[in-house]
């Protein structure tokens, strides 16, 4: 079928902020879709609240809305833009849910918008467990057996108890239908209390009986256990002619029981016979047909019993997914791009395979290498969290590697993780102890497993403990000696660059997408490289590696901009990265893509074949910066700011000298290398102190201590005071305003792109703090001083490219906190807010242009609109960790809100971040004594808006004293039977849990202990209500609530802002 010409304008929904389970892969898929649809001549309207995405670059769509992904704002956009169709399958679960809501509330019908890609019924069928089970049964496919056993009538605790024989009959039926082992889960018990895995008939009866008693409503859910079965995924594509292809098979090395996002996975599948694999393939095709996905990609997950060869369908996603991004990178088959074309009417056979340019997309990629994906975790940031992996995804990023063999790929994947610390294994631990240690799946599993092999563990022992297929154990044994040497040195194997070509070399590839493998050389001893780099000068851009907290999609955004700029300069852009979720690893982004780990050795391997003009290390966060010195030592030219300048900014001593020479002040600080030395230095600098070990990323292990005891406690817990490593102690400026600046410098001239004022006071990591651009409460003089100092520091360091400087304003004085001569996390946000692509400008400087050549506006923020960035926290994923902001960064992503005034922009940002501010109800306030004066202002504003106020004793008294009505909450120890205290008040936690509270303002009183505050914040997050943990954020929220009384906030596109950069645009053409 040809392209549809009955639709002209298509809306694409992004996936919003990066959260666990929904990361940069949707920027990759969405950006591809935007590109393809515009190439096809459609107008694209894009909505995504995440500014750190390539897809929200204004040139990717005709209208780009950085607005909350909620039915209200999106309906407003639909009304303004009148798209003919909505493509919801490229923005993850967020977009799918949103499309469903827009269908259900009648918006799509009202404005005549057609859902393309997946229709409402298909989305529903895949999402609703019951509908899905019915569809599977109709298609003759098996799912894990599951049923409910009841001891009471109905679904409530009041139901009458059933006669004993009816209960016994149900239990008999359950064991017959589900079989053993079975998972028993009582309904409505805390943490699944009373459930378990039953392996014998006797156990089954006992656990079910116990579960029925434990469940307040007398119900247990009995599921067939597939724990230990093999887990497989197939990526399926279907066109409107019902042609279906499988793009890739993926096998989880970890058997069923670990979420696929947290599993080490391999493509293609390794252990199934062809016959069994073809059965899986047939079933995957049956699933996409049964669910009714008309066009596009879907992911189908299976459990396979390796002995009986029984196959069960686990679930399907009727959209592109993390796995489809992986499959695209693993095979070279661009699923999102093709899905977008299929959605507008094309068939697979009408689309050309990008890589061969000679064959159609109606085929199944075959690969001649092995791909390993490894999740990247961040448990170290969430103290108190259970690190056991389960069916609830906890990883924050992933690395992918390609090798000619599984061993090669596995070793590369291990290197690609870039762990901050090696897994600790005691020298005297026995193999048997190590085998026990990996029985429960944890992040360290494979590091320990390899060591267990070295210490003599057998494959049988390892298989018994982990369920990992013996094929993998055999291969792991082969590399256990030294994983980094997964090469047959005896055979003289050499690093050889091969292509990813979708067809195992059957056809010539034109797309330069490479990986290195170890191979025997040719007869003359030369590696059989496939790289044909031509004669054009090239520039290598080093990517950011796996996403992690502190180094996320923002850096990939900058790398992609660097690639665009290098290409525009007439040079070849060469990208090295190992993160499959990104736009930078799309083979379309650069002239040549090398999918390689970001270690010195691997990078030098690429440089040997590329012979680039220079390497850009400024855009990929800490990862490439760490390699800069080694590259320079190897004779590689580093473009932009010199390695020496980077060191001068990073080394506290020399940076102190820079500031002293310029006459700028910084908070007093000291360094120490011992316990006593640190205590002494602490006294000297003066409390409160911000302490951290040297060389940490994202504020890891950084804390504020208020006295000598606190410092001693910190040193005991967090710091290594024995090995001579440095500990940094900085005076902490309490209640200071923190300011972030992003600027460009060419060595002679400086241009300040953005000055951002943090909403939270200093002490909250800048990555976790909301910020506003331009500053809303700094005076002209202070802003001028910030500009002057920025200029001074950038010139003194000799920056060529970007610099980010953090300041604190305290008592009318300006302090320099730190300077980073590289792209910062805020570059995309600033670029979108001011309409100037900072990373591109920086790259042009690095390639030799001057600031004067760049045609930059004199005052980038003359527009008059306000942009607010808000961080998105993953606390809901980490049960057991405190939901508090602090000096250690813990956010996974960010959103942006743009409006004509600060409160409106803040309200948009809050809504986009997932906690829309309420317009009424009860506000619960509990703050420290120091915060009480400010909290009263918050209370006043909320009271004026009609909120009922509720406070803990001290806060309540302070508010009441000011003449505002405020009810106290009960203390836990005063609670009597019935859940209230003598006065009839509930505790804050039970009030929140009961849904009586609409917003929480709670500032922390101390750290570490599981205080009341901890429970309050936990309850607020569980209940999904806004929880503001600083009083300044509380004030901003109260103002935003006050400003939102006039009805929905107008929506505005980035194109309007740029072309009509007056606040008027934000007021919209409603």
């Amino acid at each position, binding site marked *: 079928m040809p392209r549809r010409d009955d639709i002209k304008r298509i809306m694409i929904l992004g996936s919003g902020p990066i959260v666990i389970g929904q990361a940069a892969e949707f920027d990759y898929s969405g950006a591809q879709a935007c590109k393809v649809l515009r190439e096809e001549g459609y107008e694209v309207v894009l909505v995504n609240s995440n500014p750190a995405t390539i897809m929200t670059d204004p040139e990717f769509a005709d209208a780009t809305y950085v607005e909350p992904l909620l039915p209200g704002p999106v309906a407003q956009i639909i009304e303004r833009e009148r798209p003919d169709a909505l493509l919801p399958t490229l923005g993850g679960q967020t977009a799918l849910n949103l499309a469903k809501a827009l269908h259900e509330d009648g918006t799509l019908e009202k404005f005549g918008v057609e859902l393309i890609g997946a229709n409402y019924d298909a989305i529903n069928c895949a999402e609703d467990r019951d509908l899905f089970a019915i569809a599977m049964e109709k298609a003759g496919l098996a799912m894990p057996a599951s049923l409910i056993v009841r001891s009471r009538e109905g679904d409530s605790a009041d139901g009458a108890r059933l006669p004993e024989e009816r209960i016994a009959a149900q239990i008999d039926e359950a064991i017959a239908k589900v079989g053993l082992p079975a998972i028993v889960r009582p309904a409505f018990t805390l943490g699944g209390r009373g459930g378990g895995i039953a392996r014998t008939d006797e156990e089954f009866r006992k656990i079910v009986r116990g579960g029925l008693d434990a469940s307040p409503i007398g119900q247990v859910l009995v599921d067939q256990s597939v724990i230990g079965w093999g887990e497989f995924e197939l990526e399926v594509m279907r066109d409107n002619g019902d042609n279906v292809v499988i793009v890739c098979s993926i096998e989880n090395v970890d058997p069923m029981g670990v979420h696929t996002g947290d599993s080490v996975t391999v493509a293609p599948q390794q252990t199934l016979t062809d016959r069994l694999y073809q059965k899986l393939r047939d079933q995957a095709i049956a699933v996409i047909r049964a669910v009714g996905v008309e066009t596009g990609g879907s992911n189908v997950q299976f459990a396979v019993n390796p002995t009986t060869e029984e196959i069960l369908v686990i679930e399907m996603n009727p959209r592109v997914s993390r796995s489809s991004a992986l499959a695209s990178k693993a095979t070279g088959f661009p699923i999102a791009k093709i899905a977008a074309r299929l959605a507008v009417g094309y068939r697979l056979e009408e689309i050309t395979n990008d890589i061969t340019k000679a064959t*159609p997309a109606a085929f199944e990629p075959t690969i001649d290498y092995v791909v390993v994906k490894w999740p990247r975790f961040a448990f170290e940031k969430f103290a108190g969290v259970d690190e056991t992996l389960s069916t609830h995804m906890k990883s924050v990023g992933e690395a992918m590697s390609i090798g000619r063999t599984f061993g090669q790929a596995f070793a590369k994947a291990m290197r690609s993780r870039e762990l901050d610390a090696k897994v600790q294994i005691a020298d005297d631990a026995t193999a048997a102890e190590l085998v026990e240690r990996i029985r429960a799946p944890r992040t360290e599993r494979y590091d320990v497993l390899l060591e267990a092999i070295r210490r003599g563990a057998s494959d049988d022992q390892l298989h018994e403990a982990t369920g990992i297929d013996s094929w993998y154990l055999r291969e792991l044994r082969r590399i256990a000696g030294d994983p980094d040497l997964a090469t047959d040195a005896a055979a003289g194997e050499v690093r050889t660059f091969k292509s990813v070509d979708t067809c195992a070399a059957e056809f010539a590839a034109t797309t330069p997408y490479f990986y290195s493998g170890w191979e025997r050389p040719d007869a003359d001893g030369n590696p059989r490289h496939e790289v044909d780099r031509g004669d054009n000068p090239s520039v290598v851009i080093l990517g950011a590696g796996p996403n992690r907290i502190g180094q996320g999609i923002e850096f990939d955004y900058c790398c992609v901009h660097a690639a665009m700029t290098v290409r525009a300069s007439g040079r070849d852009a060469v990208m090295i990265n190992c993160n499959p979720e990104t736009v930078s690893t799309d083979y379309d982004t650069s002239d040549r893509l090398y999918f390689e780990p970001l270690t010195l050795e691997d990078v030098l391997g690429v440089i040997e074949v590329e012979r680039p003009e220079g390497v850009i290390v400024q855009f990929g966060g800490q990862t490439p910066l760490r390699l800069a010195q080694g590259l320079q030592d190897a004779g590689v030219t580093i473009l932009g700011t010199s390695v020496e300048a980077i060191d001068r900014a990073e080394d506290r001593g020399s940076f102190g000298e820079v500031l002293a020479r310029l006459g700028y002040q910084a908070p007093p600080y000291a360094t120490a290398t011992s316990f006593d030395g640190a205590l002494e230095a602490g006294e000297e600098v003066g409390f409160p102190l911000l302490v951290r070990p040297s060389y940490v990323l994202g504020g890891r292990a950084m804390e504020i201590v208020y006295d000598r005891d606190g410092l001693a406690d910190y040193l005991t817990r967090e710091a290594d005071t024995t090995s001579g490593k440095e500990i940094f102690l900085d005076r902490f400026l309490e209640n200071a305003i923190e300011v972030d600046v992003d600027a460009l410098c060419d060595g002679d001239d400086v241009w300040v792109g953005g000055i951002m004022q943090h909403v939270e006071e200093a002490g909250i990591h800048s990555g976790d703090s909301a910020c506003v651009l331009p500053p809303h409460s700094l005076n002209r003089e202070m802003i001028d001083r910030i500009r002057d100092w920025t200029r001074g520091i950038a010139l003194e360091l000799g920056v060529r490219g970007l610099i980010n400087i953090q300041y604190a304003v305290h008592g009318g004085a300006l302090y320099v906190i730190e300077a980073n001569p590289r792209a910062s996390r805020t570059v995309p946000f600033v670029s979108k807010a001011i309409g100037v692509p900072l990373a591109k400008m920086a790259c042009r400087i690095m390639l030799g242009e001057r600031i004067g050549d760049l045609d930059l506006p004199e005052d980038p923020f003359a527009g008059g609109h306000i942009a607010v960035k808000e961080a998105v926290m993953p606390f809901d994923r980490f049960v057991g960790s405190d939901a508090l902001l602090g000096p250690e960064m813990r956010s996974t992503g960010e959103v942006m809100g743009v409006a004509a005034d600060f409160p409106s922009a803040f309200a948009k940002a809050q809504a986009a971040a997932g906690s829309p501010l309420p317009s009424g109800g009860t506000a619960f306030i509990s703050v420290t004594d120091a915060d009480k004066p400010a909290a009263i202002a918050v209370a006043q504003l909320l009271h004026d808006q009609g909120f009922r106020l509720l406070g803990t004793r001290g806060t309540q008294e302070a508010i009441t004293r000011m003449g505002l009505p405020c009810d106290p909450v009960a203390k836990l120890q005063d609670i009597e039977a019935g859940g209230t205290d003598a006065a009839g008040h509930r505790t804050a936690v039970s009030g929140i849990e009961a849904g009586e509270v609409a917003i929480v303002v709670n500032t922390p009183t101390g750290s570490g202990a599981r205080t009341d505050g901890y429970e309050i914040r936990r309850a607020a997050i569980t209940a999904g209500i806004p929880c503001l943990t600083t009083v300044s954020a509380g004030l901003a929220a109260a103002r935003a609530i006050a400003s939102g009384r006039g009805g929905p906030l107008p929506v505005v596109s980035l194109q309007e802002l740029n072309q009509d950069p007056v606040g008027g645009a934000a007021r919209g053409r409603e």
Partner: protein
Amino acid sequence: MSDTAAPRPAYLLLEDGTRFDGAACGAPLTDVGAAPAGRSTGEVVFTTGMAGYQESVTDPSFAGQLIVFTYPHIGNYGVNGSAMESDRIHARAVIMREAVNHEDAPTAEQGWLDWLSDCGVPAITGVDTRALVRHIRDKGAMRGGLFDGDVAQADAAAAIAAEPPMAGQDLASTVTPAQVETVGAENAASGGPLIAAIDTGIKRSIVRELVARGAVVRLHPLSDGPEALLEGDPDAIFLANGPGDPGVVAHVIPTIQALLGSKPVFGICMGHQLLCRAVGLETYKLPFGHRGGNHPVKDLSTGRVEITSQNHGFAVQTPDGSGRIDGDEPVRWETDFGPAELSHLNLYDRTVEGLVLPEANAATVQYHPEAAPGPNDAGYLFDRFLERIRTGSLAGVTRQTGDAAAQAAGVAPTAGTTKPAATTENGDAA
């Protein structure tokens, strides 16, 4: 076979002198100049299937060939009797990047390398198979041989030169059975059709598919004439797959000609080529063949694309002699048995994948609907064959490569409220 034993160096030499080194695995390499049964020289071909190695090496169509597997790890799940496509290994040698002998895989009866060794089939591992495949792709399939590292290259080259080229070799005669064998006799009781097959090296899966659909299959040696095949009045004739050059299996052409028109005929792979030759069409050698499980083929009667299992080095020539079919017009050949119409088209290189002769009640495909190894998408062809046996005729339809065919076949775009108007091209000119 132990993973720890020091492997012997071995190498693959191609007739153009290109050499790829590796380590010996499988059966020991025989001396240069050994008898044909034990020799490790022949045509070097590659298959891109990622699994199904046991089915491949036991497929008689690989007789006389050295198989290069493009997927690096081969042997992952061991071997099992149920995966045999014949009673023995037909490939002369196996060339791999990373051979695996995983004898304790869940369904393995033996390790892959142990089995190769027991079967006397030499193999090599550690070869840069991707570089090798690129070489064959660029230069075309060629002869080559596998040699022990101690064999002088000049001796190896001489052994390769002594190997006859694939074009012109009648290998089908080497794999055809000595006498008639009947499979699925139990289906006769329930009135199942009798299918007489000319066994040029039939894969067991083909027989299995036919028997599973209720047929009784009688396998005939290549030397059997029309009388033998028509004995007992079979309901249909099947022409099987097989190795070598279809152009020199001339001795069965008169048999096929005598059978055509009398019974419904279905041919697969070599059977397709032989039928085409019997009606006067030409076959030619492809540069490096089609071997793997991912080739897209369009069924021109439905407009649907299926992913197919392929294993052939020769193809049927197009009416214009170019080997390629471009454009959307129906393609037909005039033959002594009435028109032959293109029914299936390879979307990779637009070569002939199947045709029908309505007047002769014959249909053939170049690829492998029985899969094994590879996808099962084309199983419907066996249903069509059985249906044809029941109804006795092959309805003629004009087959177009474009969208019209799909329209005609009723494969309209699936649901959706405002799909564009169908193209107006008339596709139902049957």
